């Protein structure tokens, strides 16, 4: 009799643990998605601001061309080439900002402050996203998770390689 109870008890505990792990994993997947959505919006915004800068007086014709190209690439890139395209845009913006600091007027400054506040936010968003991804990968590498297929059909999130220093 006692053995039966013990068996049921152990079964219940392990069932609870499995559901617990599954919710944990579900939450992590949710976090990966939302943090990516956040980051995506910010990057799109940055590309838009970059275009505006390209059309303003801050940029000389040559860098304007460079910037416009990079911004369009970043906007149109598919998932696989997104990272490279965004890095390209960072580089183009960095080049421009490096020597434009002293010649910008008050009106252009508004654009530049917007860009720098966006960059700050992007940095935070990247940190949050990368963390969510590594956490998820960690939990999904557990044997129990693999054995019981707790992750279901959700694709394994991939680390998005950003240059650690955006601008």
């Amino acid at each position, binding site marked *: 009799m006692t053995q039966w109870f013990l068996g049921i008890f152990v079964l219940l505990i392990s069932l609870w643990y499995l559901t617990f792990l599954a919710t*944990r994993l579900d939450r992590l997947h949710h976090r990966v998605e939302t943090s990516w959505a956040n980051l995506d919006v910010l990057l799109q915004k940055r590309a838009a601001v970059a275009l505006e800068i390209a059309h303003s007086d801050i940029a000389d014709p040559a860098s304007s061309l460079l910037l416009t190209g990079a911004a369009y690439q970043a906007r149109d890139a598919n998932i696989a080439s997104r990272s490279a395209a965004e890095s390209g845009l960072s580089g183009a913006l960095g080049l421009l900002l490096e020597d434009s600091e002293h010649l910008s007027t008050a009106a252009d400054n508004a654009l530049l402050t917007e860009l720098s506040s966006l960059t700050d936010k992007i940095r935070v968003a990247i940190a949050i996203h990368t963390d969510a991804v590594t956490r998820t990968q960690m939990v999904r590498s557990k044997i129990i998770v693999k054995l019981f297929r707790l992750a279901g059909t959700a694709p394994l999130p991939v680390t998005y390689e950003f240059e650690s220093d955006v601008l």
Partner: protein
Amino acid sequence: MLNRSLKIGIVCPYSWDTPGGVQNHIRDLAEYLIQAGHQVSVLAPVMDEEKLPYYVVSAGKPISIPYNGAVARVLFGPVAFSRVRQWISNGEFDLLHLHEPAIPSISLLACWAAEGPMVGTFHAAAKRQKIIFAIGPILEPAIEKLSARIAVSEAARLTLTDHLDTDAIVIPNGIYASRYHNGIPDKKWQGNTIGFIGRFEEPRKGLSVLLAALPVIARFAPDVKVFVAGPGDPTDVEKSIDPQLRHRFEFLGKISEQEKANFMSSVSIYVAPNTGGESFGIILAEALAGGACVVASDIPAFDDLLGQGQFGALFKSEDSTDLAKVIIDLLRDEKKRSELATAGRARGQSFDWEIVAQQIYSVYEMSIVGSEKVKLASDTRTWNRFLSKDEK
């Protein structure tokens, strides 16, 4: 860009009515956010419920436990858990900001009970402890629910990566820099003077290091005076001072914020000889903002805050000979002193709440997605039911 009014719930792990860095930080942050037009509710353990600000909600009376080399007044247990859950479900918060969620406290309970946008701030800096192997697996799933983690200093971030294997964004503690900016130099504190502020009875504040260095300093600068401010009873300390040097010391007791500002802009050198246990060093930030020339021990937090010596001089921690040397050099070199003070003042500005709160708010924005609100977690529902039955 504080443009959308949010409902923010902040959880303070330590007793609201005992003075402490975390509590001050939360109070200032809450008041800043309220001023910026947000609705803020702070949940904290409270000893005396009578003199509470309107935004603080009591979670019950705290208990004292030894933690990290000091006594922490925290709160946990089933009753506290149900209060936390009640606060969360009544609050309808857009975001929860949990402070120090890795210690047994209502912050951890809130982290356990809630689901949705959550930000955690880690204040403590401690050496790696063995116990983490035991509690790590319990903490991890809870800490994992935080959408973003903030560490108040590089030291706190390292503690976090060491202990829980996760990274954090470093955002320093805030000060109201403008309050310290306009200190009026006071004649009685000027000259060859050294300032010290803190609870000097606590050994880790390091007043004894300064005491040991004084005989040497007095030999080179005979007119040196030391002003010690801060709460505490000076009789014991006074007894330990060499009688010949006793008149060089003056104990000022607890001083007001305005006096503090004047103090910082008057003394030649401000000394922070802390021997450890410090994670940020808010008083150093205040001293820098007040335009003092700062000398501090080279513990990680101070080293970081002073930019490895760029914004203030460093000496080898607990080494009174080195301290004496650094102080004597600076007392003799007025140019270097004013250089350090000028660099320090600019550095102090970067800890102003205007800047710090903006950074914290960016993290809030990143954590809030759509209009999702904080709610009770689904995976503890069974546990919740079990608990509420238990209480009756």
